[in-house]
């Protein structure tokens, strides 16, 4: 059904948006490198493809006049999801252009900010591209050429968004969200299966980063339950004995 496809594609776009943001945050810092620029480029391209696909799908769905009210509301909700993703991508692209220009790589003395991040971002990019490992083609002019491309891409994206605004009459403020406050704490929210070559079905995970605080808490609760049952059995036994005496 159209709806399921839509949701899947939106999920993918969402994933790419999140990963792109992580990559842009690493720009200009000590984890910046040739590879990062390439990753950015690839992720961007992927994002654009997904964006175009989503847009065509959603516009065709919304243009359908024979939609029922619930369907229409649902598609409007998906549209708001899509446009918000696009906004984030556009902002991130503009910022990456600016930071990329401020921190060129091919200069004799690099002044990258010592932020404490030294690891590479392969895994993030791989997640975005939905592949196991990233392959790098390593173009030496990645800085300048990439930035020019980036500028054209930004204009493309801006144009696309303007077109969307004009053509599709959706009132974003009228959309009612399905999630209530605190929904992110519940498990398995995802709109649909992000199945476009995904690495693993991600489940909600409660594990904390620093220390096994969660684990300790779990052990304590299990211990308490065990103690409770022990007491109950002892009480039953004693009661039986008393009754029989």
């Amino acid at each position: 059904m159209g709806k399921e496809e839509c949701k899947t594609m939106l999920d993918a776009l969402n994933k790419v948006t999140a990963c792109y943001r992580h990559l842009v945050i690493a720009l200009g810092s000590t984890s910046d490198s040739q590879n990062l620029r390439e990753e950015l480029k690839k992720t961007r391209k992927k994002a654009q493809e997904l964006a175009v696909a989503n847009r065509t799908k959603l516009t065709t769905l919304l243009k359908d006049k024979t939609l029922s009210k619930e369907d229409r509301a649902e598609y409007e909700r998906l549209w708001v999801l899509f446009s918000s993703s696009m906004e984030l991508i556009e902002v991130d692209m503009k910022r990456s252009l600016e930071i990329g220009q401020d921190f060129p790589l091919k200069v004799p003395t690099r002044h990258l900010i010592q932020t404490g991040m030294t690891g590479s971002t392969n895994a993030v990019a791989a997640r975005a591209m939905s592949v196991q490992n990233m392959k790098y083609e390593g173009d030496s002019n990645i800085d300048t050429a990439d930035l020019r491309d980036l500028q054209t891409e930004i204009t493309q994206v801006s144009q696309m968004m303007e077109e969307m605004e004009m053509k599709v009459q959706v009132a974003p403020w009228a959309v009612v969200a399905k999630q209530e406050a605190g929904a992110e704490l519940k498990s398995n929210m995802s709109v649909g299966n992000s199945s476009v070559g995904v690495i693993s079905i991600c489940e909600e995970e409660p594990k904390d980063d620093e220390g096994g605080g969660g684990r300790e808490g779990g052990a304590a609760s299990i211990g308490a339950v065990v103690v409770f049952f022990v007491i109950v059995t002892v009480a039953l036994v004693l009661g039986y004995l008393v009754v029989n005496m």
Partner: protein
Amino acid sequence: MTIRNALRDHGQRYRPRMACLKKAEKVLLEMQDPCTGVKSQPQRLVITIIPHAITGEDIIAWLADRFQIDTEEARSFGSMLVALGYIYPLQDHKRLVIKPDASLYRFQTPYFWPTQQWPVEDTDYAIYLAKRNIRKKGILELHEQEQYNHLHKWMNHKWDFIVMQAKEQYRAAKERKKPDRVVFDCQERAYWVVHRPPPGTVSAMDYGLHRRTDPNADETQTPDYYERIMIFTQQSIMRPRVKSSVSIGALVKYCATYSGHDPFLSKCLPSNPWLTDDTTFWTLNMHNVEIPTKMRVERWTFSFKELLSDPRGRDDFRLFLKKEFSGENLAFWEGCEDLKWGTAVTMREKAEQIYKTFLARGAPRWINIDGKTMEITVKGLKHPHRYVLDAAQTHIYMLMKKDSYGRYLKSPVFKETLKKAICPEEHKFNEVQLEQNARNRRPSLSPIIIRQQEQEQRAKMAANAPVDITQLCRFTTPVPHLAVYSGIPDPPSVTASPLFPFLAHTPVCPSPISVALDSTSASERQLETSEGEGNMEARAPDGGNLSKSRMALSLRRLLKRGCSPSAMFASLSPKCHTAAATSSRIQPIMPDEPSHGPPRRIGNFFQIKVDIPPECRIYPIESEDEDEENRPASRDRVGTEEIICPWESLSRQNGTG
């Protein structure tokens, strides 16, 4: 489509106060240099080692060396860098200051730098809070919880997206190695501490209003530009000049007088709330406080303007004027202020009220202004606008300033207030107490609520105001009605309701007076009771929502009481103000005619000694005897007539005539 960056961008660039950002970025780049920059060291967490941590003392030393400044200044410069968000502290992350010891800091990644172009989006903040919610399993800090709920309400249409994006970003972050993950969390947290400061922190991001144009940009030389220069120079030539000795003398005097009262230049007792987060100073200086502080009372002696602009001072002055029986001046002045600052809808009404209460012949609280001003004012009132009463207001203001103000400063009221004024002791907080104060900061009452409370209080006071007879000059306008109503302790500056009682009584002149004519002692008692009754029922509705029907009702009631022994009054009732009104319809100001008719009778009514203000001129409308014949005819119209505003009367005259 939601508002995009482009639309909001127009204001973002032009914040010259934030010109420091570009300069700070340059400094920061210099600090990165491996040879000449700041020395970094690795930070050891439990099992991970994260590089690129710098100590506070290193930063300060480097800054002092680079710019050739002393450590104090380097320290404040460093604190500014931290407050802006270029460097963030690793321990005690909420206090954005540089500590000159071995506490650790780290540089912020360029994405999170506070550049002018990229406004801080609420969407991003919502995503961050959702991520934090996941991480902390639902236990957010108080202010974060509040913000979360607020955003959930206002960004509800995007909430699905926010939740989805938060989860995705959370998962994507897990793809990085442990040290990088920790660094990223610290970075993001630091960014939001700068841009959404928790309560108790000072934000360096307050930049004031947005501007549409860049004040530092070069202006194009259009003809309009030159025309503006020409106008400016022409006006400069025409400006009147003052001798520099005079103007500098005035400045010196001002500085000398006010320097002790300026919290920047001298101590603020008990303590400056902005510095110590202790609001005693504000509670001691509220509008309606019983006992003012000594500094406040001292300020009242500086000039009349100071006295009037301080609400507590104005109350004191009002009390003094009440004792002197010249409260109408201040009431008129306040009424004019109310007119000037009020809404346009109520302007016409207010102007009418003020005229009827203060300016008309036979008005209940008639003020004493000279003939010319009165003429101008009344003419202007035909087409009332906001500043129509300006001339009269200025006259009264100067009157009060030159006369009453001087007497006030020597009066027992003021001396009493001065004696009772308190001088609070200075607070001496130590570091721990200061931090506690900062944590306990809470917003005060909303000003809307405070204003409502003030209005309620005023209405309550107006409702049970004691009878206070003002305006008892023998030579002023017809006294009968004056006996009936009282000066309201609180002037009718906000509501029009206190004014209505006056109106209610004006047509009823015969009743209290005629009853009083019987016997002097009985008259006083009657006066008081009728006044009390009349005032009660007329004042019971507060808030100025008296409708015409209500007034008519009270009128009818009073009339009934008054008209019973009607035969008695026919010859006795002194000139009724309505009679005056009939003849004075067209000419609001009549030439003065001294007459001694009324005083004879008035002497019987009022056993109270009255202070006649020296400026009180003899201003009766016309002689008594003329009206005796007109009275029977005019008595029929007693119930329907009231003080008629000249502009209204003209039309009526035309209608009937």
